């Protein structure tokens, strides 16, 4: 690089030289340029369009593999049969841990032998109950191993509804197809149906940020000090910088994020 002035000089020289070299070529170049302009933009748009289609339509289809559940299950019906709602089957153990998907011995209570003529029922009793094999259910809301989630804390302590995170699966008549991310092995429900990550309902996604979203709201409600508004937070900070001793450093439960420290949700 060199300064503007002498560079301009170079350019003029260069240009002059070129024109001197050959008018004709100069002319052709211009024509081609003119013609080129249109095609170039066209090509640009073509490329852009193609890649957008790939990115938004084809890629999501390729990313997830579709898996059927070993047998179909009618939540809606079972809910009518039990008296304690979800917790009748998805219960809490005495030590506060959550049982999750029921094991065979729970089902056997009613399904010792075939009830009705539903092919799924028959399959269930013949292939699993009688053989004493657990059903290899595919769990839509399965979190990775690094996540610690306490159902007790949310249901027993904070009295939350199952629906808030799991949606209305309890009203479903049959199980939807299980979509598995080919790279991560995650259930699609974790990232959410929308590839762009948009969500309408609280249960549309189950990523860390979705937990955070709710926690932020709640803690703000419970504890005014919990999360500070940008402005008073800044004021505090300025005071803190001016006189570090003046302020108690009480933030959220975490120093770094003012949300919860890593171990609260990670193991």
């Amino acid at each position, binding site marked *: 690089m060199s300064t503007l002035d002498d560079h301009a000089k170079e350019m003029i020289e260069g240009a002059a030289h070129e024109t001197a070299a050959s008018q004709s070529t100069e002319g052709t170049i211009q024509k081609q340029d003119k013609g080129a302009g249109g095609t170039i933009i066209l090509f640009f748009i073509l490329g852009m369009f193609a890649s957008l289609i790939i990115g938004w339509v084809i890629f999501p289809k390729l990313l997830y593999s579709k898996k059927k559940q070993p047998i179909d299950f009618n939540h809606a019906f079972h809910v009518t049969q039990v008296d304690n709602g979800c917790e009748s089957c998805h219960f809490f153990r005495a030590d*506060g841990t959550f049982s999750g998907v029921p094991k065979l011995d729970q089902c056997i209570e009613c399904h010792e032998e075939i009830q009705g003529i539903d092919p799924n029922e028959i399959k269930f009793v013949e292939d699993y109950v009688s053989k004493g094999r657990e059903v290899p259910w595919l769990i839509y809301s399965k979190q990775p191993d690094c996540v610690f989630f*306490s159902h007790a804390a949310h249901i*027993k302590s904070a009295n939350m509804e199952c629906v808030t995170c799991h949606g209305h699966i309890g009203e479903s008549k049959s199980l939807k197809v299980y979509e598995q991310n080919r790279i991560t092995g995650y259930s699609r429900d974790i990232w959410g149906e929308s590839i762009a990550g948009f969500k309408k309902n609280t249960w549309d996604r189950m990523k860390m940020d979705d937990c955070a979203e709710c926690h932020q709201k709640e803690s703000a409600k419970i504890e005014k000090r*919990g999360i500070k508004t940008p402005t008073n937070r800044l004021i505090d900070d300025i005071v803190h910088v001016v006189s570090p001793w003046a302020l108690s450093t009480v933030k959220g439960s*975490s*120093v770094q994020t003012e949300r919860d*420290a*890593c171990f609260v949700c990670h193991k």
Partner: protein
Amino acid sequence: MKYNKNHRFGMVIDLDKCTGCGSCMVACMAENNVPFRKDESNKLLSITWMRVFRLTNGEPFPKTDICYLPRPCMQCAGQHEGHSPCVSVCPATATDYGIETGIVSQIYTRCFGCRYCMASCPYHSRYFNWWDPIWPTGMEKYLSPNVSPRMRGVVEKCSFCYHRYQLAKEKAFMEKRRELKESEYQTACAQACPANAITFGDLNNPDHAVHRMVNPDPKHGGRPKNPHAVRLLERLGTNPKVYYLSSRNWIRQAGDNHLKNEAKIKKPVHHG
């Protein structure tokens, strides 16, 4: 979430009682799915969240003396609560300080292995997974679901068995309680120690044994009022939550660096 009743979980290790048997190390490995390799004799590559150091007084025979010093993560609070040496340096916020418990936490899946935290820790309490964790066929059966096995390329450290705290809380929630009893949350090492040398509890809670044993001085970053108690590298200002008791002067001296002229007198901490 209320944080006004914050805990300060800490440990008091009685070096007069510690027999150097190594139970705490193994209890920790067994509890936290710590991997092992064919040759673990290079201690600079050996993952031991709890490591028992062997100290000698350097005297010749027969005046020589040995002392064993178990070293978990010190869960440093730093100068102002949470300014631990390692927490502030992690570029990806993979490690954090829980005000509620006073425990330095770590997300193994967030850590991308820059090892800056290891550089910052004077106790060498942080360990890097140089290898993929491999268990001989069948042995992965004993792995605990309460702690996620770490993958190659990340840093890990003692968590004061935080998962035990979580499980205890879940039980409490079922019983509509919020507070835990002292006995409900104990670390694996404290529980296993054959010599009862390790005591664990809430330093903020006057009813807890740890508080009674060392009597931490809140005005001086929890420095012990008990003259027989010391913290490792007190004067660096890391403000650790692990205290050591010893009746032997040379051991207490070995807890921190002293200039020749101050060999006998214990100087106040440099910071705060």
